[in-house]
């Protein structure tokens, strides 16, 4: 399954990119699966704090991901 991923702030800096399309070998992954997947893909994320947004909504519970969803990895907020 393909997902479109956007990275921000210290997460984008740590992995060296802002956007990419990734292939996930799972039929119905959820955001917990994604967290594990991203840490495997980018071990540098293991010590970083980040949250996942799905289609511009914070994934507060474990959210199911669908093909072509917009996934964003968000480091701690610093607005204001």
């Amino acid at each position, binding site marked *: 399954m393909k997902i479109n991923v956007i990275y*921000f*702030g210290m997460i984008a800096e740590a992995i060296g990119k802002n956007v990419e399309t990734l292939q996930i070998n799972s039929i119905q992954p959820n955001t917990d699966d994604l967290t594990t997947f991203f840490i495997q893909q980018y071990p540098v994320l293991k010590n970083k704090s980040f949250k996942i*947004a799905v289609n*511009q909504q914070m994934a507060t519970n474990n959210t199911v991901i669908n093909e072509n969803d917009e996934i*964003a990895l968000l480091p*701690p907020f610093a*607005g*204001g």
Partner: protein
Amino acid sequence: MSEKKIKNVFVEGPITPEKIANSIAHHQVKTNIGAHDIFLGQVRADEIDGKTVQAIEYSAYEEMANKVFDEIREDAFSKFDLTCAHIYHSKGVVKAGELCLFVFTSSKHRAMAFDACRYITEEIKAKAPVFGKEIFEDSSHVWKVNN
């Protein structure tokens, strides 16, 4: 049915005192307002490990952030008896001493303006996907985290 147009809250660079003055002036025609409250966020020259912050470079998940700002504003209108509420946030570089956030609430009476201004500001800090890179004089940086 047309989708509601979401306002863009972001301003490139610092928020100028002139923008704030103009915003106040624009409300003088709204004579049902009896109280305004304003919160201004200013970039601090914090000292971190012996180095002084010169500026913060703000970035954001802009599309989501504008939706979040809009939700916060709508929530404020439902919780408080407001006449007006405006939010502006910087993106890009804002130097120490310059302003990065402008929250402006107006109501008939002071209590609602005060409470709403605080509510909006706290919600922004907690929920808006805005990121800040604190830049030092030697061009090194650390990432700011709200507490």
